[in-house]
Each structure stands twice: as C-alpha cells, then as structure tokens.
C-alpha cells in the first residue's frame, strides 16, 4: 500500500469501543481527483472510519497519512488545517445567518477589528459563482433550499480545507434535480483535483459519479475496486454477504399444499413511505423480505402493522375486508411486530422481564382485566422456557439481559398474545450465535404450527432457509416476488441490484 499518490490514507486503522471492534485494520487510500465511494450497511464502520480520518476519533492502532506523511489529527478543526473538510447529511450551518457569514464564519475578513461585511459579501459572491450559484450572499441561509445549503456547506469546506472533501450522505434529503445539480458541483471539484469521499446508500449514485468504491462490512475492509470493472451485482454482493454460497442453490421451501389465505393486501401503500403493493399471505407461510437498507423494508413492516397507517389500498384478514388504522387494530386482529431497533422501540429497559413479556397480552386484554402477579409469572415463565431466555430472574430489569435474550423476550411478548400473523424486522441482527439459532428455530417451529410471518433480514442465506416466498424491495417499492426452486442468495442479490444484463435462473 505504499502508493505515494494517495493524498489521504488510512493504514491498518483499528478502533475498539469496549469489547466491540468497530474498525479492524482498515486500509484505505484516496487519490487526488477521484470520487471514492464508501459503502456498507449500517454498523459496517463507515462513520467510524470517517471520524478517524477527520480527527474526531483517534485510532487504537494504525495511522492516518496525509501526502504520505503520518499525522496525528486531534480534532476536525485540526484535520481542516491538513486540508480535510467534511459535509454532513444534516447541514450544520446557521440557517438564521447570511450565506456570506456562513461561508466565512470564524475567518471573516476584518477591518479595524470589525467584520468587513462588504468585502465578505463580495468574496462570497465570487466564490458562489464558481459553484454556479447566483444567490444574494446577504440573504439568510435558511431561506434557501437544502440543496443550495448543501452546496454552500461544500463551498465552505473546500474553501477552508481544499485537499480532501468528505461527503456524508449529502443526497439523503435531496430530490432528483437537486442531486444532479450537486453532482455537477462534485464533478467540477473533481476536475480541479480535489479528492472526494462519497458516502451514500444509493447504488445508482455510486455508479453515476464515483471512480472507485470501498466496501466495509462489520468493521472489516471487504475490498476496494475500480468501479468500471465491477457490476452492480458485485457491489451488492460485497456489501451483503461473506458466505453467500453461489454454488449450492438452496431451494425455497417446497410449495406446500395450499392452505387458507390469511391476509390479502391489495395496492396497499402510504404516500412518501411505501409504494402500493399486492401481497397474499397464507397460513403457515413465511414471506422473506430482502432489500438494502433504506429500501422501504421497515416502512412496509410498519405499514402492515398500522404503526404508520396506509392511506391507500385494502386489506382482507381471513376473508373479511378490514381497516387497520393503528397498532391496536392490528393487535386485535392477531398481528404482532418485533421492530428492528430493539432498544428504541422494542424493550422497556427498566421494566422486568415478566412485565416485558406480558405487556402486549395485557394491552390486548385492556385496562381493567389485569393479569395478577401469579398469572404474569406463569405466562412469562412458560414463554421464557419455550424460548430459552437466560435471565437470573423474571423480575430483573430486561435491560440487563443480552441483546439476544432481549430479542427472545420481545418474541415471547407476541407469542403470548397467540398471534396469527407475526412481522419480524431483522430479528437476528446484532445477537449472539446461540440466540440466533434459537430464533431461526422458533421461526421454523411457528411456521410449521401454521402461523403466517413476514421476516425482514439482511442475512440472505437465512432468509432463503426459512422462507416460502421472498419479496424484494428497492426504492420503497416491491420490485420482485421470488418463489419456487433454485432460489439462492445470488438470485436475490440480482433482484436487489436489478442488473438485467447478467440474469441468472
């Protein structure tokens, strides 16, 4: 990796938080005049790497090199003096100050110790013209669109640093035209020799402007590739799976003798959230949901559960047309939902394991038919045992349990309500191997008992193993429904990337 034309380089950078290795010996090099995309699912280590490169974190091992020389970056301001500037998704400028002030904050031209506004605005005007922005520099920054603010932020970062520009999901809140405009700016900057790191979740954008791509997964470097030599499918494959076995095609669960239809969604959707979709779910069927982060998987789950109610389409439960306006409606029809963010939306950290297990059942029973302590203990004990929850006591706060056991508690919570339909959003994310196996076993057992399930997961081999059918989400739209034989993770990856050019069975 002794490539002397790297303007910014990380060599063997390792970052450890507690006993969690966030970055494991990452090598990353950035050349001048290139746009380098940094990809990875949540928790892959992208933001940690950026924070090391900008001095917000100090690496525990390895080092950061600027122009081939080892540097110690104390903080982002210090990184700026080395020519490294960052623009974040949320523009962190001052909306109620003028554009010019935002550009030169902390570096205002002064005259007799006072800010020389005229000089500053003149400089701002020339600067902004270089970015094709003909706006009044004395206007409030907040009066402009997010895209303009984004460009102002970029102009400021480039002006202050000038060698490396890091763009952390700059397009997340922009519409299509704004994205194009931003890309023009990026292309210009690239031509002028700036090195740019571009972080995004959108593959199209990666292919539109990047020269090289580096993929991280679970804190490890997967690979750095020249983008003109890889296909979209390759990139998705790099992002998602270490052990996606393309050789041994796993068949989906053989088509079962048709059972009764439990749920029928017809052009069910919600504006600005999920495009209308059709989906029929039978009893004893597991629908796997695949898609990249931000593809609308979680939104679909929340829509089905009534957490974000649908504004179009119809739903039929066991043959009866019905309306699900909120979670209470959903639960009363036998739905259950294990959310992706266990800590923020799943567990009640300070409440006991017992209370965490019985709460949905109690919610279903209502305010006045309270389960007494003995009944609670019996229910919690029964499901705790069935799910093999490892807790010293059912009366200990659930926050003291491990992630895997917390997930089992949430699953038990819904099983206690005797549901007909369960939605599991990333049920196996971030939990230990033992709990992982237990949850997969439970999914299989429940399916065999006739429960209908929708399981969202990034673990493709796992999805293939227990699903009867797989639907694929992309850009908040259900783009494919895969069924039958010869479904393997490779086919799913292709459906996600939608590269029709290299179709496989």
């Amino acid at each position, binding site marked *: 990796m002794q490539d002397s034309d790297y303007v910014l380089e990380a060599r063997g950078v390792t970052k450890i938080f507690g006993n969690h290795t966030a970055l494991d010996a990452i090598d990353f090099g950035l050349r001048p005049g290139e746009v380098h995309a940094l990809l990875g699912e949540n928790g892959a280590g992208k933001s940690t790497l950026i924070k090391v490169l900008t001095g917000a974190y100090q690496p525990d091992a390895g080092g950061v090199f600027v122009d081939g020389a080892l540097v110690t970056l104390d903080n982002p301001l210090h990184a700026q003096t080395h020519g490294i500037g960052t623009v974040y998704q949320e523009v962190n400028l001052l909306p109620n100050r003028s554009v010019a002030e935002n550009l030169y904050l902390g570096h205002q031209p002064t005259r007799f110790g006072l800010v020389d506004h005229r000089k500053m605005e003149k400089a701002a005007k020339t600067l902004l013209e270089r970015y094709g922005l003909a706006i009044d520099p004395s206007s409030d920054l907040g009066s402009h669109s997010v895209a303009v603010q984004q460009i102002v932020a970029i102009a400021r970062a480039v002006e202050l640093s000038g060698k490396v520009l890091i763009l952390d999901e700059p397009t997340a809140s922009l519409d299509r035209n704004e994205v194009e405009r931003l890309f023009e700016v990026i292309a210009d900057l690239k031509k002028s020799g700036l090195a740019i790191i571009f972080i995004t979740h959108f593959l199209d954008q990666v292919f539109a402007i990047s020269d090289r791509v580096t993929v991280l997964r679970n804190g490890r470097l997967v690979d750095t590739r020249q983008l003109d030599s890889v296909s979209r499918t390759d990139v998705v494959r790099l992002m998602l799976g270490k052990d996606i076995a393309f050789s041994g095609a796993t068949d989906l669960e053989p088509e079962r003798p048709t059972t009764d239809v439990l749920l029928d969604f017809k052009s069910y959707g919600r504006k600005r959230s999920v495009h209308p979709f059709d989906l029929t779910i039978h009893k004893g069927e597991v629908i796997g949901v695949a898609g990249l982060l931000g593809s609308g998987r979680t939104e679909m789950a929340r829509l089905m*559960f009534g*957490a974000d109610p649908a504004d179009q389409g119809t739903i039929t439960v066991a043959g009866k047309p019905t309306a699900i306006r909120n*979670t*209470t409606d*959903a*639960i*009363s029809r036998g739905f259950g*939902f294990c*959310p992706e963010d266990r800590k*923020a*939306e*799943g*567990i*009640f*950290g*300070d*409440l*006991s394991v*017992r*209370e965490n297990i019985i*709460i*949905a059942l*109690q*919610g*279903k*029973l*209502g*305010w*006045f*038919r*309270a*389960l007494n*302590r003995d009944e609670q203990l019996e229910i919690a004990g029964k499901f705790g045992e069935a799910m093999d929850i490892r807790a*010293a*006591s059912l*009366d*200990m*706060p659930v926050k003291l349990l491990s992630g895997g056991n917390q997930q089992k508690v949430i699953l038990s*919570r819904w099983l206690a309500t005797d549901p007909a339909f369960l939605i599991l959003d990333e049920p196996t994310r971030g939990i230990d191997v033992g709990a992982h196996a237990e949850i997969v076993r439970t999914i299989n057992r429940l399916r065999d008992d006739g429960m209908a399930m929708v399981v969202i997961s990034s673990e493709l081999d796992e999805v293939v193993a227990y699903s009867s059918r797989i639907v694929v989400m992309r850009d908040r739209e259900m783009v494919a429904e895969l069924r039958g034989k010869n479904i393997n993770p490779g086919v799913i990856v292709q459906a996600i990337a939608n590269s029709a050019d290299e179709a496989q069975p």
Partner: protein
Amino acid sequence: MKRLHLERLANPQLLALAGVLLINWLLFPNFFRITWQDGRLFGSLIDVLNRGAPVAILAIGMTGVIATKGVDLSVGAIMAVCGAVAATMVVAGYPTPVAVIAALAVGIACGLWNGFLVAILDIQPIVATLVLMVAGRGIAQLITEGSIVTFNDPALIFIGTGSFLGFPMAAVIALALLILVTLLVRKTAIGLFIQAIGVNRAAASLAGIRSRMLLVLVYALSGFCAAIAGIVVAADIRGADANNSGLWLELDAILAVVIGGTSLLGGRFSVPMAVVGAIIIQAMNTGILMSGFPPEFNLIVKAGMIILILLIQSPFATRLFVRQRLVPAKAGPK
C-alpha cells in the same frame, strides 16, 4: 414474611421520614404528644398531617404524570381556579354539592387541556403545562373579579377544617384519595401501562397500548387532584385567594413525588411513597418553624434536599450503588 417486613422498614422514604421526625422530637420533645379535645385530635403530628394534605393530594396526581416522563406545572394555578369557582358559586347561592362538583369538573377540564397539549399536540409537558400555570392565575382572578372571595358556607368550610373520627378532614380526604388512586393503578393494568409509557413511549405504542388516551387520563387525574386541593385550601381559609392559593405548591408536589422515589425520567412509581414524601416535606417545614429559625432557612433546606435527591438519582450514583449490590430490582411498585 419476616424478610419482607425488614425490607419495608429499610425503605429510604420511611427512613427519611423517621429521621426528620426524630430531629423534630429532639428539638421539640412534645412533638409526638397528641391530645383529644372537643372530639378531635390535637398535636404537632396531627398538624403535620393536616397541613401536608394539600401537597399530598397534589402529589397523588403528580405521581402519574411524572411516571409518564412528564410534569404538571399547572397544579398550583388549577388550585386557585377551582378554589375560586367553589367560593364564588357558594357566595352566589348555589348549593355546596353543586359548587364542589363544578369546581372538580373545572379541575378535570384543566387537566384534559394539559393532556390534549401533551398527548395530541405532542408539546413537551413542561411547556404545555406552563401555559396553564401562567394563564390559570389570570382565570382565577377573573372569576374572583380581583378580590378575595370569602364565604360562610358551613358545609364547604367543613371540608377544610372539619374532622372525621378525630382526624382533620383534609388528611382524611388525602388518605381516601390515596387509597382510591392506589387501587386504580394497582388493581387494573393502568399502573403498568403508565410505567411502560414513561420508560419507552414508542415501544408502548407498538405493544398496543393506547398511550395518548392514557396520557390524557393521567393529566386529567392530576387536574382533578389539584381541584380537590384547591377546594380544601379555600375551605381552610374560608376564602378564595386567586393570587396566593396554591402558589409554588406545584414545586412541593414535584419534590414530594421525587422524594417518593419516582424518577423524573419516568417509569417506576409509587403513589403511597409520594404521599410519604409530602409528609416529609411538611414535617421539615413544621420542624423548622417550631425550632424558631427564620423561615428563609426552610427554603434553603428544601433546596439542599432537592440537590441531594438529584445526586442520588444521577447515573453516577446509580453506578456506585449498582456495582455494590446486583440484587434484581423489586418487582413492580406493589
């Protein structure tokens, strides 16, 4: 059984109460003397119960609010409004029960307004209840037309100064309310749901708890309790003082709840312990008054207690304690 008993004795609130009472007794040996006179009990201890009753009543309602991670700053002002309603109505010649029921209804309406702001409009509780805290006194002044409305209605006065089985009426009302509310939250699932909302409202909604309805109810209960306290205080002084009735009592009520072991971060709560907290505060007040210190001292001691309690609740202290005894937390506030 024996261990349970010991555990209950080791309860920090009861220990604090015992400590304050002990200090009072040391300063004033006659503190525990209770006499029977004219069919009622007299003594410093009875006085503590009587004077502590309004804050105890407020604390009963406040506990539920704080357990949902909220706070109700408007209870003092609601007291003034409801006292004014009751007083002006009896003066205008309405029968006492009508006046009392009207005052209680106004209190509930105030609580519903707070609940609407917090649960439906999603305004932060401290801001939402600040509205009525400020506006409430204005409303009370409009009702009393700027003067102190005095009355001679014996039935209404009885609520503030009468006695039942020898105990002061205010304390009896507080006790009855305590029992009622405790039964309501313990014998139904409401207590559990309140805790669930306080710990994690997003998760509560996903678990099918009607968190908005429950939040509105909790604030309505707080308004109801404030109305009772307002009537008691007005009846005690035989008049409605829009400016001073219940002034700053919301802070005492919050302090009582916090002393009672309910965290301002929501979650676990105990209504009886909040009442104990109110009694602790009153015992302190009485003790300081009897000892002859200047009343300013009272406020300083209170401030000191708040600091002490916040320190104990801080993550730092939790770390310190938890490391020493990893006993599973006690199940539910029974």
